[in-house]
């Protein structure tokens, strides 16, 4: 039964991937392809955040730091070394993971409110480093000069179609891995901590270790999202690591639903679509976004998928 659930996840992922890969073969639309590329980065970013928010009950306001770090580490490695793309990407994720581990080691022992504050503070610190270390990062101009050697296993990522395919595959595999984390005994431990950390600690669970593990894993996958973002923008910008970007991930998680694995993906989709549509009609996109979020918070009182689960109970998660 357990293996059948794992198979079901893989099947869903495979079908989603096939559909996404098939669309450009039938109809080319640069706008749609852009959308999916940005979505794959955002989906990894938001879903990794939800490992903290929804699974563990740790609300981090500084998750954008790891997204930004992934992007900068990857873009800088590509520009400054001769490493190939997969090696540079792996290195960038390794760096992000290590950073998440260190930041987590400082933050995870704190209570909920202070945890939220200090993660935000860490992010602001990181952001100011990017802004001030101009010689390395290009400061507020961002890291320009493009990303060289855009190929992986002989696969040219310079073409938009190839980048689209690459991002879709990476995102689906990344989400599948996160799904596995969430469905593992460790994922269950995180839910125990979210539900009742006092009880969990009386069962032999070492809270800070579990939290640090979650924080590190979440950071690593945010870093992977950052790598995709860097590929899309051909560089890295301080905005990727700024706090409004963390806010975007929190919005995505809230819009889609924190108690459903795919909630943040749906939330990211809604958020990106909103941004695209709204910016076409008005410059007050913040206002529209605010109204939509208010409608969700006051109307549905939960994200879309959580709402559906609530409205149609009985379906397993």
């Amino acid at each position, binding site marked *: 039964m*357990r293996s059948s659930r794992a198979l079901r996840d893989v099947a869903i992922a495979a079908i989603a991937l096939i559909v996404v890969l098939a669309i450009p073969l039938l109809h080319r639309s640069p706008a749609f392809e852009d959308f999916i590329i940005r979505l794959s980065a955002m989906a990894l970013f938001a879903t990794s955040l939800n490992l903290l928010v929804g699974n563990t009950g740790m609300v981090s306001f500084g998750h954008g730091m790891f997204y930004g770090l992934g992007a900068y580490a990857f873009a800088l490695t590509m520009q400054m070394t001769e490493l190939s793309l997969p090696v540079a990407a792996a290195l960038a994720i390794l760096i992000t993971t290590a950073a998440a581990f260190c930041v987590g080691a400082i933050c995870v022992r704190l209570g909920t409110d202070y945890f939220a504050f200090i993660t935000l503070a860490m992010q602001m610190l990181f952001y100011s480093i990017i802004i001030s270390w101009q010689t390395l990062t290009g400061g507020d101009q961002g890291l320009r000069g493009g990303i060289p050697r855009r190929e992986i296993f002989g696969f040219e990522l310079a073409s938009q179609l190839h980048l689209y395919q690459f991002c879709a595959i990476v995102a689906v595999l990344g989400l599948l891995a996160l799904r596995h984390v969430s469905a*593992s*005994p460790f994922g269950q431990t995180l839910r125990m901590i*979210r539900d009742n950390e006092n009880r969990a600690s009386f069962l032999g669970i070492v809270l800070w270790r579990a939290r640090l593990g979650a924080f590190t894993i979440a950071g690593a996958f945010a870093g992977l999202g950052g790598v995709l973002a860097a590929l899309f923008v051909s560089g890295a910008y301080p905005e990727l690591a700024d706090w409004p970007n963390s806010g975007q991930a929190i919005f995505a998680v809230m819009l889609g639903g924190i108690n459903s694995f795919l909630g943040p993906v749906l939330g990211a989709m809604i958020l990106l679509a909103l941004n695209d549509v709204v910016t076409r009609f008005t410059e007050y996109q913040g206002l529209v976004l605010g109204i939509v979020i208010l409608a969700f918070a006051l109307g549905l009182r939960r994200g879309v998928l959580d709402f559906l689960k609530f409205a149609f109970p009985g379906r397993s998660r």
Partner: protein
Amino acid sequence: MKLEIRNLTKAFGGLKAIDDVSLVFPSGSLSAVIGPNGAGKSTFFNLISGAFPPDSGEVLLDGRDIIRLSRSERMHRGIARAFQVASCFPTMTVAENLMAAVTAHVGQWGNLSRRFPPPGVRERADEVMEMVGLTKVPNVEAAILSHGDQKLLDIAIALALEPKVLLLDEPTAGMGPDERWRMIERVRKLWEQRQLTLVFIEHDMDIVFQIASTIRVLCYGRVLAEGTPDEIRNNPAVIEAYLGTEVHAT
């Protein structure tokens, strides 16, 4: 396992919640801890289970001091507890609660390499469910269980750790008279079957005198008396401090 407390003291501010308490709970005994509200009973359990450190004193498990061990290390040595207010994992079903507890107990809580639950865990959880009589509600979320079933689940979670020493903080709190007796009968059976060293806090004197083999009376953080139900019943100090004056509420 023998549980021995030596000169345990804990003060909150100026108030000594536990004041130089020394007690021995022999292996396989069924003891009640009673005392008026604020006597330090829950603090006593919290100190034994490691919720917070004492100011001084020792807690010995089969002769080995465990006072410096963390909660989780104490759990591994065989001390488990249930809480006055039922403490479980509200968004999980009964079965998930117990599988999660068993997973933690077998040291698999950090496992990332497989799906939950790990092999063997479901079977163990089923056994525990059977033991406490929760087999009718395995797929009900803990949050919507009846109060009595939540208390049972709390005890079941403790039992999932295969404890040698089990601390129950008011297992019958908030229950009606019939339910209390069913609960305490179940607790007594568990004690018999599992050969536990069981210590429980209880306010209902009928229950205490009926099932406990020894009774410890705490009052203002000190041991006022200890002995068999008969000895306690006739102890003048106890009658004055507690039995005589307490108007029996729920």
